[in-house]
Structures are given as C-alpha cells and as structure tokens.
C-alpha cells in the first residue's frame, strides 16, 4: 500500500517540480499565475484540465491497442516500486534478483510506446514509435552493463543487499564511469532531452503520443514522471548508497529521507538537463550508444572484475 | 498442486499451435513467431522436468537458458533475412519467395 501510495504521489510531485523548475529557468510566467502565491495550484489546474478534455480515439485507429497502450507504458513503472528499498526495513519485496527484475520490467514500456505509435494510424506517431524502439533497445545495453559492474562489486543482485553493501562508501566513488553511463542511458530510456528524438515536438509533433488526449495522455505523462522517479531511485540505490546516509551524521536522519532526498536531487538534475541541452540527431544518438557507451561499459566491467580479483 | 502431466499437455498444445502456425501462415515474420512459440513450449518442458526430477544439477534450466540464447540469435538473423527479402522482392509472403524452387 505504501508503495502504491508513493507511486501515485511521487510522479505528480516530479511533474510539479518540472513545471516550476523550468518556469524559473526559462523565466516563463504561466506556471507562476495559478492560485495566487507563486503558482502553487498549477498541479491542480493541470489535473482539472486533463480530466475536462474530450477523450478522442481517431477513426482509423486500432481502438483496443490504442486504449491499452497507456496502461502498458505505465504498469512497469508501478511494478518496479515493489522492490526498491526506501529504508532498511521499508520495502515491499526483497527479491534475490532485484536489479535484474527492475531492468527487465522497465524494458516492457517500449512495447507500450510501439503500440501507441502504431495504433494511432498517424505517420508521425509511427516514426516516433520506431525511433523510440530503436533508441530504447540501444540504450538498454549500456544501462544493464553499467549495473553489472555494480553488481559485481556488491556481490549480490538484491537491491537491499546492494544498499547494505554501500555501508562504508557509496559506489559512485568506485564506479564513477558506471554512474555516468547509467545516468546517460537512463535519460535515453526515458526519452528525456537531450535524447528526446522519439517525441521531438518540432519535427514529428509529439511522436507516439500525438493522437492522445485527456486522461490517456495524462497517463503517458504520469508514466514519464514515474519513470523519472523510478530511474532516479535505481540510480540512488546502485550508486548513491540508497537509504545509507553520509558517514558521520547519517544515522541522525531516517533512511527514508536520505533516499527521498537523493531521488529528488537526481530528478532535479534530469529536469535541469531539459532546460540546458539541445536535442541529438537520430544517427548521432545511435552512434553514441554503440560506439561510445557500450565499449566504455564493457571496459568498466573488465576493470571491475580485475580489481575485484586483485583485492581478494 | 499441479502435476507434471498437466504441464506436459499444456506445452504439447502450445507446441502444436506453433507447428500449425509455421505450416499455415504465409507471412515470414509470423512463421518466425510461430517458431518462437515452439521453442518456448520446449522450454516449459525442460524447466518442468528439471523441477519434478529434483535435479540439483539444474540441467533443464541450463538447457532452457541455451535455448533462449539460440532463439535470440535466430530471431536476429531471421529478421535481417526477412528485411533483405523484402528489399529485393517487395514481399514477405513465403509463397512468393520461390526463386530457388522449380
């Protein structure tokens, strides 16, 4: 229940954060208006707007697939939160194969995007979906390989185990390369800028989501923000020690707040990038994954293995 | 409790569906998908026997793992060939790809 509650609230918080942060960074006045002081009611306003909109299914669309797609995109991100530890004892499930499970489940949302793009009967949607599929498969590999290095160092696949293993020092200090690869790859997995070629609004409108309106579109947005929370949480567990605090004063604050703080900081970082970087071109994007990230991740794994054997 | 025979029947049905798909579907991509179905039916059998024979050597699971790997390789090559055929012949209907048939 806690997990579900967290999932239902956290993405909205992140969505709100995105509004406000971008408004500040770009000096936009819109999100500052709603509700008087500093635009606090923007989130409520957005919600009301989405519910009021007409739910349109295009005539040529494949209505079953069209309707199911938002759910297929969203469900994986809910399923992830079942295994992410938010405190030493605050987790829903401690799977032996936690990190592997998480990475497998995130891969499912690609299918939802493909379904959405194809069922919309719109060529821009289809192009967007195909771009998304190519990109997500390409960046899945560095994501997994970067996690493998952490798993090798921790000696366990369980997320709770990995958090516990970082009792003395966080893995960002021993795996800086892995952390870099993981963050870049998760940006691409989320199709966030600068890797937002699949939804590039200036050339293919909004990719796979073009034909969606009202609540269905809100589902996609929620899935995107849920994805930001999910990947921030995974990165926190893998590289920033999860619920482990910093050495001296760490135990003064409960683990839950450490974890939330780290997730919030990473989410802020991801939003920050949107206001900062231009979009990569499709071929540059693929090239970056296959030529730069994957060899780097493989080298990282090799070095980790050698060091681990030597230290032993 | 599930008994082993149920699982065997189940995978036999899946396998038969796969065979029928390979023989009756004309779309090359769907033929490949039916082959995947057959391979998966076999995997169910392997894992089931592994479980019921209490095999501590995990032979069934290891073989299922190899089958999955080989299936992945097969799909990669198979789909590349399908795209190649489409590029040359403008069709992926296996009936119309008959250059080597006389």
């Amino acid at each position, binding site marked *: 229940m806690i997990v579900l509650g967290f999932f239902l609230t956290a993405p909205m918080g992140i969505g709100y954060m995105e509004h406000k942060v971008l408004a500040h960074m770009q000096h936009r006045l819109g999100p500052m208006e709603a509700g008087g002081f500093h635009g606090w009611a923007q989130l409520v306003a957005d919600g009301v707007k989405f519910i009021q909109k007409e739910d349109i299914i295009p005539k*040529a*669309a494949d209505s079953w697939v069209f309707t199911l797609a938002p759910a297929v995109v969203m469900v994986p991100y809910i399923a992830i939160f079942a295994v992410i530890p938010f405190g030493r004892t605050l987790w829903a499930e401690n799977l032996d*194969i936690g990190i592997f499970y998480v*990475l*497998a489940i995130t*891969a*499912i949302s690609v*299918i939802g995007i493909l379904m959405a793009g*194809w069922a919309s009967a719109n*060529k821009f949607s*289809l*192009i967007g979906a*195909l771009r998304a*599929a*190519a990109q997500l498969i390409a960046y*899945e590999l560095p994501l997994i390989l970067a996690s493998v290095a952490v798993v090798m160092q921790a000696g366990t*696949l369980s997320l709770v185990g990995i958090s516990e293993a970082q009792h003395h020092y966080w893995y960002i200090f021993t795996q800086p390369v892995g952390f870099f690869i993981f963050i870049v790859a998760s940006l691409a997995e989320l199709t966030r800028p600068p890797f937002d070629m699949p939804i590039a609004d200036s050339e293919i409108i909004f990719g796979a989501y073009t034909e969606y309106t009202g609540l269905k579109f809100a589902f996609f947005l929620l899935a995107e923000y849920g994805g930001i929370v999910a990947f921030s949480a995974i990165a926190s567990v893998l590289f920033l020690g999860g619920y482990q605090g910093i050495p001296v004063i760490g135990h003064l604050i409960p683990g839950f707040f450490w974890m939330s703080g780290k997730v919030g900081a990473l989410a802020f970082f991801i939003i920050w990038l949107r206001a900062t970087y231009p979009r990569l071109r*499709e*071929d540059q994007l693929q090239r970056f994954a296959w030529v730069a990230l994957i060899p780097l991740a493989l080298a990282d794994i090799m070095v980790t293995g050698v060091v681990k054997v030597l230290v032993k | *409790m*599930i*008994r082993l*025979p149920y*699982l065997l029947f*189940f995978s*036999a*049905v*899946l396998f*038969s*569906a796969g065979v029928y*798909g390979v*023989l*009756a579907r*004309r*779309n090359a991509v*769907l033929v490949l*998908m039916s082959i*995947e*179905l057959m391979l998966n039916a076999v*995997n169910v059998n392997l894992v089931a026997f*592994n479980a*019921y024979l*209490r095999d501590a050597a995990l032979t069934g699971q290891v073989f*299922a793992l*190899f089958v*999955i*790997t080989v*299936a*992945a*390789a*097969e*799909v*990669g090559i198979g*789909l*590349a060939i*399908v*795209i190649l055929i*489409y*590029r040359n012949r403008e069709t992926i*209907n296996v009936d119309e790809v008959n250059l080597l048939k006389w």
Partner: protein
Amino acid sequence: MADWIVFWVIAPVSIASAVAMILAKNAVHSALLLIVNFFTLAVFFLILGSPFLFVVQIIVYAGAIMVLFLFVIMLLGVDERESLRERILGQRWLALLLGAGLVVEVALAVRVGVGFGHGGLPDFTRVNRGGNVQALARVLFNSYFFPFEVTSILLIVAAIGAMLHGRRRIGDEETIDAPIDERMDEPGPEPVPAAGPAEATP
C-alpha cells in the same frame, strides 16, 4: 494450492493467446498476443522454481525479441490480405487429427513413464541451494563452460551477420547528410512513411 490456482488461471490464458496469435489476421495483433503468451510462460518458470528464467524470459523475449518483431512488422507494413492460407489439402482437419494424436501419445508416455498419480510440485530448497541464480551460475560456469562460450560466439556471429544483412549499400542513402565514412551501418528507423493499421484520415 496457490500454484494450482495460478496454473488453472494462467494456462487457459496462455493457450488462448497462442491460438489467437496463430489465427489473428493482423500481424501486429499476433505479435502482441505472443507477448501475452511469453508473459504467462514467464509466470510458469516462476512457479517451477526458477526466478532467474522468469526474468530472462521477460528481458529477452518481451524486452528484446518481441520489440524486434514489432519493429520489423511496422517497418514493412501490415499486409491485411495475406493471412492464414492452408497449402495442404484438408490441412485443418489433418492438423486437429495429428494434434489429438500427440495428446494421446503424451498421455500414454506419461502413463508408462511417471504415471498420473505422480506427486505435486516438489520444494526447491535443495535444487536451488544458495539461491537460484547462484546455483545456476555454479552449473553454467563449471559443467557447461565450453557450451557457454560457444553460445556466446554464436551470438556475436549472429549479431555481425544481422548487421551485415541489414546494411544498405553505400550510395543508396540520401537522407543523412553526414560524410560517407561517418554513416552508421546499423539500420536506424528507416524513413519509410508507410504502415499503420490504415491510412490516416485526412
């Protein structure tokens, strides 16, 4: 008891999705139904004591293979008029007959081999000593080390082969403005404005 319920819920879904996948007119629907089928099989691996294969099934099939299938189907376009065509005389009846024959044969084999009274699901504590992943790794990297390496070589060869098949001849491309030697060999999404279930309404 729990696994009994899971079996009788999941197995019909699994078989129904498999049969619907074979009979579906639309190739994309077939692929989506096959994904459902693979998920049900993943659940079977879970109740058969192999959480590792459960995850592998999801990550390899749902995450990679089926995305590849959908990708290719959408790239080539869906041809509605092609569907099921039976090439052998009376194929459907022959198929049903042979299918029934297979079921009878399995039944006989089971009866001779283990018998229908064979007990339920064993516990997996002895098999999965020290965790399923650890047990599997122990077997894989000891007894099956050589096959493992051979399979990895097979995968690399397959990847290179697929890449070579998929690449277009240099000079065919007109969409990318980079110099020739910087072009990618990997086929990204091609600029074909085709497919979708139907033409977009104007």
